[in-house]
């Protein structure tokens, strides 16, 4: 990033306001408005306030961001060790409201080594790294295998591939078994590659799938949601085409000769009716459907032309069409149910083996880390956690807070609720400090919940104010990174209330970005073939955000 030129006083004032380490603060920060800066500032101010470095937890979204932030903290603190009194006083005043005196200066100069020597390292880390550490310290309390290993993405994929293959092979070896039948049915629905993708997807969404209960319950639910009687199957429905028909088979020849009197379309229909009788069963159904439906399976607009004057007949044909279409609908639902059921059977099997294998080998994947940490904090007395966690965490900072998932917020709440539970229970303040920008949420595929950002702000604000604690909310609008044209383009996108509501639970929409007076010129270009607004809408909150200025997770 370019070194900022002129920083308006108002911006400095804003940054100082949210850096007060004694007060919890919430920052909504536009892209390039100095998020990392305020976070680093806050960490330093906490330390300057005498907070022990091991009591600070700073959650970043990527390992690279963690390394970057730690480096900036250390660089600043290292510089302080070499400043003379006047220089140090100036540096302290720039950041905090405390008046520097000899003791404060000495403390400031010690901070560098003190932070370096933090037992277990300064806790600037991703939530997954934090959860890993936490669980390693509480394996029994958290119901995780002591000495568990974390499955990284590559190992996770490899294990799934292996298990999927095993399931496929077993299915292929016993074609009449449960798996074999499911496999044969599933094959039909998907090409080789898509099949694996479907299984992978099912496993990624295992939370949803497994909450349905066991496989049979899940299948029953599936039938229900498709409006299908669980006992319905394709054969039964196909039989109904003729057993319940309003036009008896015996009538077909007569009908055919009536229709043969009409024009060309009617003659075609006549031929279809005439041919039905001699056909093999399977063909007959298809042929009969053709009389009433188009090739795409939608009802024909007219079954016969105006040339057929027999209105009773026409009316009967129309009613038959209704019946046939309803059956077709059911038939489709059953087909959909059967295909889904087949895939579900296989996905379930893989999933069950996956869970078993993880359990047996003591492996946790990234989702487990969050789930288990959350369960630990929910089930175990907070006092024990804080006691054993090297006696506690007092200050929590969150970077890219808009990409925090619901569960991750719950973890944060567990860690911090006690802060406001009995204010005054501790002789000093404990604080939270989330920084984020809903407009930059690009990890929806990892359950990022940008709407929680404002929701949580209100939650924490309530909790603080209800016990008489201060709570500061500020918006950083100035961008140090981009020129006016780029910022205007972003504002344009998010001016749409619909767009804003897609990522934020705040009703008021977003404040516009402000460019610095000396910002570089820029140009905005739409990244998709469709028009910019709809293109961005489909993309905001997804992996490939056109407007993102953030690097992907490292």
């Amino acid at each position, binding site marked *: 990033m370019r070194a900022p030129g002129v920083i308006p006083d108002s911006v400095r004032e804003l940054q100082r306001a949210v850096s007060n380490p004694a007060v919890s603060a919430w920052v909504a920060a536009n892209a390039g408005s100095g998020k990392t800066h305020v976070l680093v500032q806050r960490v330093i101010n906490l330390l300057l306030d005498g907070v022990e470095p091991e009591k600070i937890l700073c959650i970043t979204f990527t390992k690279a961001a963690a390394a970057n932030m730690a480096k900036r903290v250390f660089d600043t603190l290292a510089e302080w060790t070499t400043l003379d009194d006047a220089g140090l006083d100036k540096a302290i005043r720039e950041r905090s409201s405390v008046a520097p005196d000899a003791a404060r200066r000495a403390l400031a100069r010690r901070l560098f080594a003190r932070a370096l020597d933090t037992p277990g390292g300064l806790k600037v880390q991703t939530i997954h790294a934090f959860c890993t550490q936490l669980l390693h310290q509480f394996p029994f309390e958290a119901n995780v295998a*002591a000495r568990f290993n974390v499955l990284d993405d590559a190992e996770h994929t490899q294990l799934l591939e292996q298990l999927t293959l095993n399931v496929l092979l077993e299915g292929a070896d016993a074609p009449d078994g449960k798996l074999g039948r499911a496999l044969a049915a599933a094959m039909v629905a998907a090409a080789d590659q898509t099949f694996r993708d479907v299984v992978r997807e099912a496993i990624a969404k295992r939370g949803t799938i497994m909450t349905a209960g066991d496989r049979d319950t899940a299948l029953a639910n599936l039938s229900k949601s498709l409006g299908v009687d669980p006992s319905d199957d394709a054969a039964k429905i196909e039989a109904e085409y003729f057993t319940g028909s309003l036009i008896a088979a015996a009538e077909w020849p007569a009908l055919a000769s009536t229709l043969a009197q009409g024009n060309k379309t009617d003659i075609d229909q006549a031929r279809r009716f005439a041919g039905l009788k001699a056909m093999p069963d399977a063909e007959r159904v298809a042929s009969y459907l053709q009389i009433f439906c188009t090739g795409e399976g939608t009802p024909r607009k007219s079954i016969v032309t105006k040339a057929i004057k027999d209105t009773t007949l026409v009316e009967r044909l129309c009613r038959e069409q209704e019946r046939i279409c309803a059956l077709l609908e059911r038939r489709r639902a059953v087909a959909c149910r059967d295909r889904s059921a087949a895939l579900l059977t296989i996905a379930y099997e893989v999933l069950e083996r996956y869970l078993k294998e993880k*359990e047996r080998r003591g492996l946790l994947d990234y989702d487990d880390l969050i789930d288990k940490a959350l369960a630990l904090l929910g089930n175990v007395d907070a006092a024990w956690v804080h006691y054993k966690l090297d006696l506690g965490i007092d200050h929590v900072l969150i970077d890219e807070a808009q990409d925090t998932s619901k569960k991750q917020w719950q973890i944060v709440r567990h860690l911090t609720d006690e802060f406001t539970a009995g204010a005054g229970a501790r002789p000093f303040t404990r604080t939270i400090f989330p920084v984020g920008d809903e407009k930059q949420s690009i990890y929806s595929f990892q359950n990022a919940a940008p709407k929680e950002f404002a929701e949580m702000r209100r939650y924490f604000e309530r909790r603080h104010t209800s016990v008489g604690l201060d709570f500061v909310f500020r918006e950083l609008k100035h961008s140090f990174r981009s020129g006016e044209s780029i910022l205007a383009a972003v504002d344009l996108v998010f001016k749409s209330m619909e767009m804003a509501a897609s990522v934020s639970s705040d009703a008021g929409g977003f404040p516009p970005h402000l460019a610095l007076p000396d910002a570089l010129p820029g140009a905005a270009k739409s990244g998709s073939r469709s028009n910019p607004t709809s293109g961005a809408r489909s993309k905001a909150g997804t992996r490939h955000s056109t407007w993102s200025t953030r690097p992907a997770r490292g």
Partner: protein
Amino acid sequence: MAPRVFTIPASAPFLPTLIEALIGGKLGFAAARDPLAMAAATLYLPTRRACRLARDAFLDVMKDNAAILPRIVAIGDIDEDEIAFAEAATGDIAADALALPEALGGMERRLLLARLIGKWATSPELHGTSGAPLVAQTPAAACALADDLARLIDDMTTRGVPWERLDNLVPDELDEYWQLTLKFLQIAIKQWPDVLHERGAIEAVTRRDLLIKAEAARLARKTDAPVIVAGSTGSIPATAELIATIAQLPHGAVVLPGLDTDLDDESWSLITGNESKRIAPASGHPQFAMQALLTRIGIARDAVASLAAPRGRERLLSEALRPAAKTDMWRQKAAEPEFEAHLATALETLTVIEAANAEEESLAIAVALREAVHDGKTAALVTPDRALGRRVLAALARWNILAEDSGGDALAETPAGIFARLAAETALHGFAPVTLLALLKHPLLRLDMGGTEDAVAALERAILRGPRPRPGTRSLAGALQAFRTELEKFRRKEKTDLHPSDPRIDLTDTALAAAADLVKRLGQALAPFESLGLTRLPLGELAARHRDVLAALSRQGKDDVAFAGRDGAKLSDALDELAAMEAAARLSVEPSDYLELFSAALAGRVVRRPAQSGLRVRILGPLEARLTESDRVVLGGLVEGTWPPESQTDAWLSRPMRLNLGLDLPERRIGLSAHDFAQLLGARDVILTHAAKIAGTPTVPSRFIQRLAAVAGERWKPARARGDDYLTWARELDRPETITPEPQPAPKPPRAARPISLSVTEIEHWLRDPYTIYAKHILRLTPLDPIGAEPGAAERGTFIHAAIGEFTKTFAEKLPDDPARALIELGRPHFAALNDFPEARAFWWPRFERIARWFARWEIARRSGLAAVVAEIRAELDIPLGEGVFKLRGIADRIERDAEGRYIILDYKTGAARTEKQVRTGLAPQLTLEAAMLRQGKFKDIAAGASVAELGYVLLKGGEPPGEPKPLKFKEGTPDSHADRALEKLTALAKRFADADQPYRSLVHPMWTTHYGDYDHLARVKEWSSTGGAVDESGGGE
């Protein structure tokens, strides 16, 4: 008498200084004047390596004087793997050693503990609230946990903390949770002592401590001979006791390594912490152990005499590493002119390399080492990071510089270790083709064959590429045999599913026979594992079988080459030990768990390289580097987590709890690491290196470097600038002088080399990407399938085409009663080839069955309107080209004659069909060219001048719907007119390429702008295409 304690500063060569002092009588007794008196002396040093070096140093100092060397004994130190002292016990204390019970070896102890943990893990009442086991269920996981537990037992034993202290460790209100942990720790508290007792054994650390104590007691009795202990910081209590005893002996002397004499007293006293000021002990301080040792001896720091004047960076290091609680003094120190002067000198010969990644770091180090060699100096790389050491070693090979690598290699990573793992993984984990090939291509594989290379290559080509075969050597044999049968048929020109373009048809009988022999021998060699199935066996039995497997795999005549080398010998020992170990005989495991246990058994075993004397470059671990000297010292891998190492706590005790119990804090290791660092900076010419990223993950520079940089301030920059020079040189090494972009290839082979006959399907390649024709027909290159590929569409297409073709031919006149069943029966023999490839069969057979049923219905309806139908019918058409002739070949999938005598040509597609536009514009001319041949009367029994009423595809994918007719409905023109145009176009094309100046370019009309097919890589498309290789799926070119 006052205790005699000395120090040798880091900048003085430790052993020469020590020995000169000893001989020169500076240690307080004149023992050395008399050679016999010297013989009576005992010298204790921390490591065996130091003992060896001390002998050399003695000879150097004594020069030609005859001397009998003192007895030199290694004490062993806290972080040394082997406890040298107990092993080196000779002479007087040998009797004591013999009287002590045996200690349990590492693996045996681990397995015994693992067994207790395994029992605990499976006991139902100890499951968590969710019913999930609280401990991983595999023996390997139990072993890992056993290691943690063993470490805790050692810590408690070493510090002499009784287990009862755990009971009241935690406040009552939190006891509920603590009980969970205590329950688990009962394994260590109750069950483990019983196991030891039953076996009449004691802990290795107990034994070590007893021996040291016995030695201390013996020394205290015998007071006449000189006793010197040097180089140890006394970090183990028992060692500290020994050192304290020696310090009090009349002829005893203690020589400390680099006691910090520069640090001010207040800071010095803060190393132990100060409770009233809420300052925790600085376990991470380099002097932490020695400070405690001096207290133990009962001597003040200023009473310690220095055996040499410090001439190096001692003050800088003392300053930079001072306790954090007093680092506010840095500022005032910096203002002292004296310190400023020291700083200037200390940093003058210090270089700092900040590399972008580990690869760059190792190359820069290699350059620095090479420079030292060039200048006739000795140099050492010291690093705890073995991977870095190996990389540097490899980089040095560029200049044929040999280095002594004392660190050795982990046995698991040596050729023998890898071979052993591959064998077990192949046989016990499903014969994955990649693993199997890695085993077969391993240099230790012999199978008593006298060369396996050709056999392996043939096996790979024949059955290991493409979809994976069924696991097991029997299936391999079956798959190979099936392929050979097909190949035979192909050669006899009988019906077969082998396509003439299949790269495997070139395989010779000799090579295939060798492959069959290989599979047979492999089966015999792996039999001890393959015969296991899922049977649980004792670990020892599995190890014995593993040994047999490896012997058979690597047998050459009478030799088992896997066990021949240094690594092989270690491997053999490891397996034999496991096979003979009682604990392993009692641990029953599933075969699939064996590999992890075997890996655990190898962990920690190191294969040392043969000592090479006279080498100028050495690669050392920090422990081995203690007390050694080199002209240039490179400290590599200085990042947090490596140097210093990670300070991990275990799952049961947190830091405050450990402190409370009187156990060492995890930071203790950081202190030891810091001391190594400070000592190594005693060399004059020092280079510090670290990488910003390792394996793609950002790193944090070592706190030692960060502290030095902070204290150095502005002076750090020149040190970095010097480091940048090495980086520049390293980067320049591999940078070409100029980079010339590769142009789009335009090969112009001579006319004689150009193909004069192509099939209708290949004309599309010729039009779209002529380079494909060049590579396939002129260079004659055929792509091989990837190893263990997922089932692809190509083979499926062949089988389905073949079955349907046969069906239509067989029943051209009249359909059978049950056409679907007949078709399925016809498909069976074709799919039989997939019997040994279950995955492929699983995907394709169900689809084929669906296709067959659909096809049968379609065929019945279709036939009713047709006069005749033929399938798989060949045609050839000569196109005159002035001098020569171009021959177009084709096989039509299906030609029908309708009631009016006109023809319909159909093509079955198991993949995607071409669009009407592609056919109409002539870019997909397969069907139109077939039509052209038909109109010219080139198909048997069809007269010239016939008309084609329709062209079309029949999709046969087996999905929903299983099949689908896709007639081509031309927007303009008729099949006849398009056929004529296609032929004109082909004639023009053939004429153009008959000219030797016409190049076979790549990507002329590709489906996608940046890629086309199998030969893009060969054509180096990514180097010259406009987007620089980014894939653009937007679909241009049509």
